[in-house]
């Protein structure tokens, strides 16, 4: 029986394993050094905040794996011996494979800051990171978080839930400036401050200072300000977790290099998820995709190929979502931090400053290219269809109610939004009532 070995039991590796099982009878082994069972990394914060126990982050019951004949192995892979098709494990054993899928995920970035390896200085990526955050929390009165992105906000919310004060250092002049347009960045910043976070823009970390036990006691900013703290969260992005491949036969750059079939340069070895880097992305996105959904889609795709049905990775319209404290964010298509040459936009914000809708469209054709919403839930299928089919703005506005996905009885803002749109564009679009037929005609 052919043996498929998967390194990494995150969403990418596990999705691949589940789909290979559905498609074939191959022997499947999933190796991970982190935890025995698959868990949802995205839910780590909820465990710390006591919303859930760790077991609740595990999407499958423990006997699922045996029932589905997916062997789990807790070990660290030290080396891949591609000529003998075997793995060297940290427990001294070797494991032979016929096909190999590398799904080792990411690790938190460290940019060589002095003091970055002190005690209570860490990122938030793994289960072990969560454990050590837990360990240091009891003795932390103030935490400094470095790097304004999604994981940083989560960390801030986590600390605040335990009454630990947070100072948040962001290098750019606005929040998540590499991704969010100015308006959204400001909206998020306001909300973060409303929660009592000491949020500082244009502020960079210079150095982390140690106390006599090797634990952080303060940080120093580029401007020379010293901020006392007992914990430093490093959340300035993540990068592929592939040191163990350095100097091996498999080609790597920042990640494991793959083609559109997720295949590496070595036959029968694939890479998926956060750790994969496309030589050239099949749909022209960035070559490394570090989100849950893309890992899942790559897992589904590679399973087809591994089972003999060679399939290229073809993700649909880009989408993503997040939550900044109490404000949910959804995005469909592309809304870049700065408008591109051919783009123009429409921005509506509710007077409470916590909800907004941002549509980006083509200047000349008026076709919708992307949308951001804060505080309003949107219907994925509808938004995807609009963007895929390049719907014109007037039409999007007319049928805006179709796309609303807020819970029943929520206030709806389409009328207000379209009124503003008409005023700004001299149009006379009138909003149509939601229609099930339109929603489901895909």
């Amino acid at each position, binding site marked *: 029986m052919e043996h498929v070995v998967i390194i990494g039991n995150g*969403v990418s590796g596990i999705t691949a394993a*589940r*789909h290979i099982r*559905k498609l074939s009878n191959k022997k499947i082994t999933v190796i991970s050094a982190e935890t025995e069972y698959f868990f*949802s990394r*995205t*839910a780590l914060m*909820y465990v710390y*905040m*006591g*919303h*859930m*126990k760790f077991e*609740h*982050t*595990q*999407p499958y*019951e423990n006997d699922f794996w045996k029932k589905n004949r997916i062997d789990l192995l807790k070990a660290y892979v030290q080396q891949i011996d591609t000529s003998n098709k075997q793995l060297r494990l940290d427990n001294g054993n070797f494991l032979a494979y016929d096909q190999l899928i590398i799904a080792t995920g990411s690790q938190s970035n460290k940019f060589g800051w002095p003091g970055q390896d002190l005690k209570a200085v860490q990122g938030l990526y793994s289960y072990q990171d969560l454990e050590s955050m837990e360990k240091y929390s009891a003795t932390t009165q103030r935490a400094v978080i470095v790097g304004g992105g999604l994981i940083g906000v989560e960390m801030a919310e986590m600390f*605040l*839930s*335990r*009454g630990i004060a947070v100072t948040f250092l962001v290098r750019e002049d606005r929040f998540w400036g590499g991704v969010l347009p100015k308006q959204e960045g400001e909206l998020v910043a*306001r*909300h973060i*401050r*409303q*929660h*009592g976070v000491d949020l500082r823009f244009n502020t960079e970390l210079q150095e982390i200072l140690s106390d006599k036990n090797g634990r952080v006691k303060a940080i120093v900013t580029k401007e020379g300000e010293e901020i006392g703290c007992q914990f430093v969260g490093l959340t300035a992005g993540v990068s592929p977790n592939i040191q163990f491949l350095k100097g091996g036969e498999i080609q790597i750059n920042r990640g494991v290099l793959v083609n559109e079939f997720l295949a590496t340069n070595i036959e029968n070895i694939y890479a998926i998820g956060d750790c994969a880097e496309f030589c050239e992305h099949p749909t022209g996105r960035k070559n490394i995709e570090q989100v*849950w*959904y893309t890992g*899942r*889609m790559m897992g*589904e795709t590679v*399973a087809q190929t591994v089972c003999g049905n060679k399939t290229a990775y073809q993700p*649909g319209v880009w*989408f993503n*979502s*997040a*939550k900044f*404290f*109490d404000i*949910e964010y*959804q995005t469909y298509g592309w809304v870049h931090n700065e408008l591109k040459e051919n783009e123009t936009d429409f921005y509506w914000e509710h007077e409470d*400053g916590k909800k907004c809708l941002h549509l980006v469209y083509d200047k000349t054709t008026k076709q919708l290219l992307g949308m951001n919403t804060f505080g309003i*839930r*949107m*219907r*994925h*299928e509808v938004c*995807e269809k609009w963007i895929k089919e390049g719907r014109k703005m007037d039409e999007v506005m007319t049928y805006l109610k179709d796309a609303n*996905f*807020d*819970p*029943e*009885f*929520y*206030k709806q803002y389409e009328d207000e939004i379209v009124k503003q749109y008409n005023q700004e564009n001299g149009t006379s679009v009138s909003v149509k009532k939601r229609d*099930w037929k339109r929603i*489901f005609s*895909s």
Partner: protein
Amino acid sequence: MKDQDSLSIAQPHPKGIDFIQKLGLVISAIGILILLVAWGGYTFQQNGLFLSLSLGTIFLGTVIYAARTYLTQPAGIHNNGIWQKSFTNRGMWGWLVGIVLTGFYVLLYWYPQYLGLAQNGEQNKGLVALFDPLSQFFKGQPASQWFMYGTIYTLLICSLGIKFMLKYRDNRYQAIRTLVVIVSQLFLAYLIPEILEGFSDSNHYFAKDIKNVWPLNYYFFQDWHLNNMLEHGGNLGMFYFVVGLFLFLVFTPIITYYVGKRWYCSWVCGCGGLAETAGDPYRHLSSKKISVWKLERWMIHGVMVLVFLMTFASLYGYFTNSVTFLGLEIYAYFQRPYGFLIGAAFSGVVGVGFYPLLGNRVWCRFGCPMAGYMGIIQRFKSRFRITTNGGQCISCGNCSTYCEMGIDVRAYAQKGQNIVRASCVGCGVCSAVCPRGVLKLENGPEEVRVKDNPILIGKEEIKMDVG
């Protein structure tokens, strides 16, 4: 920019609880203390005064505490520490509350004399006596243990309902739903029945909580109850009889078709009302295991069979004027065991007493025949579903954790499948706690109700098909 936001919220994330919260707790503790002293057997000289004091302080203290706790934070659901506190995580306090509640129910159903109910023509004592003035006011007679219980029950739904509304205040579905829960309990289940009781023949009791429909009200068709309604109840009795039949036969199936069983289970039902309000801190304790789901289906449908059988026997007896059915005495073999095992032990003692141990919907999930009946409609012939939003699920597990009915919502959501389950009571909390906007309770065309989503490549059915 709302500058004043940050001013109105002085310190959104304080450690521990502050003076006003403590004040709220102390005020409601006074009220609870009065109840406990009375339960202990002490009979107050001025019951009216102490009753007002007790009910008033419990209500006031709870509202002060809740308002201070939730209004000092920006709106949003924060289940911080739920799994870390002894009170809500089956710790010592959880067990203690469970034991006290269970004990209370045992006395309520089987030993009301220990709550002070009058024996052999004496006067009420202790806890029941405390409620005499209010009962006298409504219906001109001393309180029964049921009057005492109904009053406390209503007080809990009202005060903890307000707490719930404050906690979930950014969610209008929750706010409106809970307002309806409170109003239904206060008027339909408490005030109107108690007032009507005052006008009617007290020797011939029949149920006057109009929304307490058979089969939840299992004795509706028992001979004594039919007699009391039809022969002694006058126009009112006839009205309740006709409405009861109509609700069960016509209203329930139609409304359940249009909006799912939630219209009853999480909007108007008394058991559901207590579960949603007082039981809210325990909703995460329901088991999500597939094995428990199996058990659930056996149990709930089992109870349904029992209630049908018992009712059939009762009606047989009623129409044939016989006290036996198939040679078995109807009371001893059908009515009494059902009332004891299901009506009292299951729905009361286990159903509420075990909130802190098994979650707030034990009865609704495993026992309630009304839920079973509507569940079948909801599963097979209804417009209600929870729509999953394409591929947005991140498998975090908040939805499953906070589903009081123990539905593994995530199992569906992460595959892009809509949730169509017999047991879902439509509380909407899964949708409320989902951090990615994945879930929407909605009523829509039946054709697209169960649907695999094209955005997730590859299709997978959930193994067990009948919910």
